[in-house]
């Protein structure tokens, strides 16, 4: 089983944000993935999608379903994270008023992605962008 899908996420679009994650969840259900794994992928993917809408200049989510793992790659085109250690700290957030009105910006997104994924990698460069790679073992 090899399956690949890419989704675009626009900056600040809180109206449609979440649409990619709903499609990812539906796709995994159609592929017969267990609901326990779907929940982990869905939560981590949705946190990533909201982060793209809240913090980035726009980006993409790539879903890859392979024989032994599901891979989510979340990439944006900036602005980049100056201090990754701080960004990974629970409770630390730079989210604005609009995100907080939606119930986000509590500084739990990145730690929650790490918690749900079996493998989590993040790299970021200011002025360049951020890339997050998450693997979920089947």
């Amino acid at each position, binding site marked *: 089983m090899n399956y690949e899908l890419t989704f675009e996420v626009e900056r600040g679009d*809180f*109206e449609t*944000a*979440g649409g990619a*994650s*709903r499609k990812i*969840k539906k796709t995994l259900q159609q592929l017969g993935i267990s*609901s326990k794994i779907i*929940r982990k992928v*869905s*939560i981590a*993917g*949705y*946190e990533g999608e*909201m982060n793209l809408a809240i913090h980035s200049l726009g980006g993409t989510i790539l879903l890859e379903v392979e024989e032994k793992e599901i891979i989510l790659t979340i990439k944006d085109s900036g602005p980049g994270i100056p201090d990754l250690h701080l960004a990974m700290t629970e409770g630390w957030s730079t989210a604005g008023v609009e995100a907080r*009105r*939606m*119930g*986000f*910006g*509590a*500084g*739990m*997104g990145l*730690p*929650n992605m790490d*918690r749900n994924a079996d493998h989590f990698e993040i790299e970021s460069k200011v002025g360049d962008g951020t890339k997050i790679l998450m693997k979920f073992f089947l």
Partner: protein
Amino acid sequence: MKLSRVQELLEAVVLSGESHLDDEVLTGFGCDLMSDVLCFAREDAVLLTGLVNKQVLNTVDMANMNSIVFVRNKMPCEDVIKMAQEMNLLVMSTKYILFEACGMLYANGLKGAHLR
């Protein structure tokens, strides 16, 4: 507890997903912070919240929760109700504040849906 009992106890108005009123719910989570719902809530629980935007529906969907009760007489806009209908998600609204609504459900046997 059946979700119809949740509706009855909270005197809630059903906005979508009426066919799920016969479903069982074992736990509940009361919160306005969707980040915390995604971190701490168990699946198959009812979410009680004062937020009424589309991201509440997405949060419940991603976390595999089974229903939403909007508290403090909050009513979402038509777009949100339409989205809930398309998702076939049970969404209700109650006049009670979050504290009272959670207390009434807890006193009647519903447990907290937090991860331990």
